[in-house]
């Protein structure tokens, strides 16, 4: 299948991201969002873009008087905080917010709707107050005609942080070096087109998604910089980055109509919590009941927290490309003066690369291929090949394994897909 067109747009979209790869490293990669105890959101409309060039009317929550955005602002609060969300409605239909997983939510103002109090069309307001009693990953979305309004984009993430920084919950099993939001959704453009044509109550029973998104973007836009000027209504990106041995916290939210089996290349992830609750046999036992998986489903309305790490252990060869002066391996190679990289396992130290790679004219090269099998190394590639892996990192696709979902309509690749970047320990990470 020809994919020349996609390659071009991949190159375009990634140019900004690669620029940022060379930047400096923040101490801990934080999830983009807004913090505090009082949030002023406005429901309004705007247009979201798909990576193959589509543009669709969407509704979303804006931060204050800002632009409508999808997903809505990620609300980041501290455990125990009394949180107030004031919603102003700039849409032509009533709108509300529900906070699944929060208890004791007090809604005030507006008028009573089916699931909660609603802000009236065209300027109405409503407020919600609750105590963020438990840490975890949660979602929020419209409780008003949600079949239409959530499809249109009125949904977001809520993160409640525990007292201990660098943890998702009150246990070291949830400690992380980097954390990323994976807000997984799907989109049926027919519904958006119907709303754009003035039908505010379109039929959603025949919903048939042809777009699949992470944090509101389709690949390769997922990997472009956060806040990219050309995606004004989709400010959140997703391109996880780490060094060997570091721990990534995956905060995954099923935010669409369908479940999506999310597959992490490179290694398993360990599920530590579901719906904001650690998988514990007892509070002191951490995530002892959490299972390891290479594919985990994001089920609509539910959340999963998982820890991903990658060490390269038991690879059977030295992925740093270390070589003993006399062919030594293991401790003998250390003794011969070849030091281990940080965290490298002694077992594979200085073991040679096990095969001979085919000659270049027999190969097709990926845009993220460095030209070398070794971490942190660059190899020679034919002109025009590679180019999006300036530090010789290892990249692994994280994607929906219902593979139909990694397209943008009829163009592959796209959709619910991003790349994990593992950089050499000496290379600073930039988390765009």
């Amino acid at each position, binding site marked *: *299948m*020809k*994919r020349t067109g996609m390659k071009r747009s991949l190159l375009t979209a990634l140019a900004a991201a690669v620029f940022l790869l060379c930047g400096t490293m923040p101490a801990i990669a934080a999830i983009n969002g807004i913090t505090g105890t009082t949030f002023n959101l406005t429901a309004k409309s705007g247009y979201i873009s798909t990576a193959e060039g589509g543009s669709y009317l969407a509704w979303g929550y804006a931060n204050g008087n800002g632009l409508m955005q999808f997903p809505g602002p990620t609300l980041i609060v501290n455990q125990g905080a009394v949180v107030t969300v004031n919603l102003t409605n700039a849409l032509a239909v009533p709108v509300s917010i529900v906070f699944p997983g929060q208890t004791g939510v007090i809604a005030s103002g507006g008028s009573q709707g089916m699931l909660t109090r609603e802000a009236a069309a065209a300027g109405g307001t409503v407020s919600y107050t609750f105590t963020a009693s438990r840490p975890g990953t949660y979602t929020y979305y419209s409780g008003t005609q949600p079949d239409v309004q959530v499809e249109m984009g009125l949904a977001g993430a809520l993160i409640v942080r525990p007292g201990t920084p660098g943890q998702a919950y009150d246990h070291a099993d949830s400690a992380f070096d980097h954390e990323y939001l994976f807000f997984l959704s799907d989109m049926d453009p027919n519904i958006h087109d119907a709303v754009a044509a003035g039908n505010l109550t379109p039929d959603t029973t025949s919903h048939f998604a*042809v777009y699949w998104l992470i944090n509101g973007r389709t690949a390769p836009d997922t990997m472009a910089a956060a806040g990219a000027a050309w995606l004004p209504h989709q400010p959140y990106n997703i391109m996880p980055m780490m060094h060997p041995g570091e721990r990534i916290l995956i905060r995954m939210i099923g935010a669409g109509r369908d*479940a*999506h*089996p999310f*597959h992490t*290349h*490179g*290694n*398993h992830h360990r599920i530590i919590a579901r719906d904001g609750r650690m998988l514990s046999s007892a509070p002191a*036992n951490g995530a*002892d009941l959490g*299972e*390891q*998986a*290479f*594919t985990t*489903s994001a089920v609509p309305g539910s959340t999963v927290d998982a820890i991903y790490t990658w*060490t*390269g*252990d*038991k*690879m059977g060869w030295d992925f740093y*490309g270390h*070589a003993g002066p006399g062919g030594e391996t293991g401790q003998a190679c250390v003794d011969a003066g070849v030091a281990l990289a940080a965290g490298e396992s002694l077992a594979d130290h200085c073991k040679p690369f*096990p*095969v*001979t*790679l*085919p*000659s*270049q*004219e*027999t*190969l*097709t090269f*990926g845009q*993220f*291929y460095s030209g*070398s*099998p070794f971490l942190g190394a660059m*190899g*020679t590639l*034919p*002109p*025009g090949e590679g180019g999006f892996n300036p530090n010789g990192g290892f990249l*692994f*696709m994280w994607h929906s*394994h*219902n*593979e*139909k979902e990694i*397209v943008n*309509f*009829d163009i*592959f*690749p796209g959709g619910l897909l991003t*790349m994990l970047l593992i950089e050499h320990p000496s290379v600073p990470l930039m988390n765009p």
Partner: protein
Amino acid sequence: MRPSRSFWIGLSIILAACLLSPSWTVAGVNVQCPGDNDGDAQWATAGETQPGNTQCMHLAAGDGFVTMADGHLQYMFGFSDVTGVAPADVMNTGMLAAQFPGPTIKVKEGTNFYLTLTNVGMVMRPDLFDPHTVHFHGFPNAASIFDGEPMASISINMGSSLTYYYTAPDPGTYMYHCHVEATEHMQMGMLANLWVTPLQDGTDPGTNCASQKFVYNDGDGSTCYDVDFPVQIHAFDSNFHDLHVAVQPLPFALMKDNYPMLNGRGYPDTVNTAALPAPGENGGKDSQIVSSLITATVGQKVLLRVSSLSTVDYYTLTVLGIPMKVVGKDAKMLRSSTGTNLSYLTNSVTLGGGETYDVILDTAGVTPGTYFLYATDLNNLSNDSQDYGGMMTEIVISL
């Protein structure tokens, strides 16, 4: 297809004499298998010695035809096993030899596993020059170079070979598939079973396990089984395949499967223990050799290695009349981090694409007879418009 490929041909490749650069070799069929001198990925020839702890395999990637249970002839892409074939014969042997599912790979934990993939091209689509890969789906701590995901690594062009290496580090039920243009190549059938057996096999952990076969290194015999069977979920969208062989534009997002299958067949073909009749369009090469008939004698523990490589839908499987004990998920034994056994009994398992389950059926006390394993999303009990068949097979328990 990469148009830029044509630009490389004829280029003289100057390689930097960098410490980190591996050496490069020439084009063509090229098996890399330690101790194998004649390139057939075996040690059958005089003078060849199989090194310890080493296993080799040679797969061809190409196209071919399979037959759906209602008789519909289906064009596909797939893998075939060319292990033991002389290099000069590999292209001819591998062409139009695609199998569905591909050859099962079974390797013992800790083995140095060399898998050579030769791209024999798509005979029915001479307009295409697609490369292929093997993705060892679920293998832990992988390196990009052997991950088979083409954006982050390399894929092999027509007429040439690429050798993958893994140590098969952890036991369990995995899968493999081509990852090039994954939506397309996987829908087209480049899918197969991949199992890693544990070091504990052949040992006695002090429990009653006469077979000395285990799913995992459980330490207590709790994953003991007597016989194991593949239960790999596939489904085809015949419209997609028919458009493909007709060289028409392909509908990705509108993909809709209408042939739900187990191990590449719909019921009742699933219970046929023989290879299905080879389509003439294949030149008589068998393309569906994996039966899904599950047989055991009363008292045996039956391991179902359940996996899904469906590209569109979730599926739920049940076994009518025999409880299903789930002992593993995604090639990991169900154990808490402190060692508590978290296996559980159920009547169904649900899989999205890319998930696996290890399910043990304990037939102690089970009345001999025929039991059914099928998709509980009952619309999947169909072969296109033939509304009896699809994702179902039989479990025959005898005395």
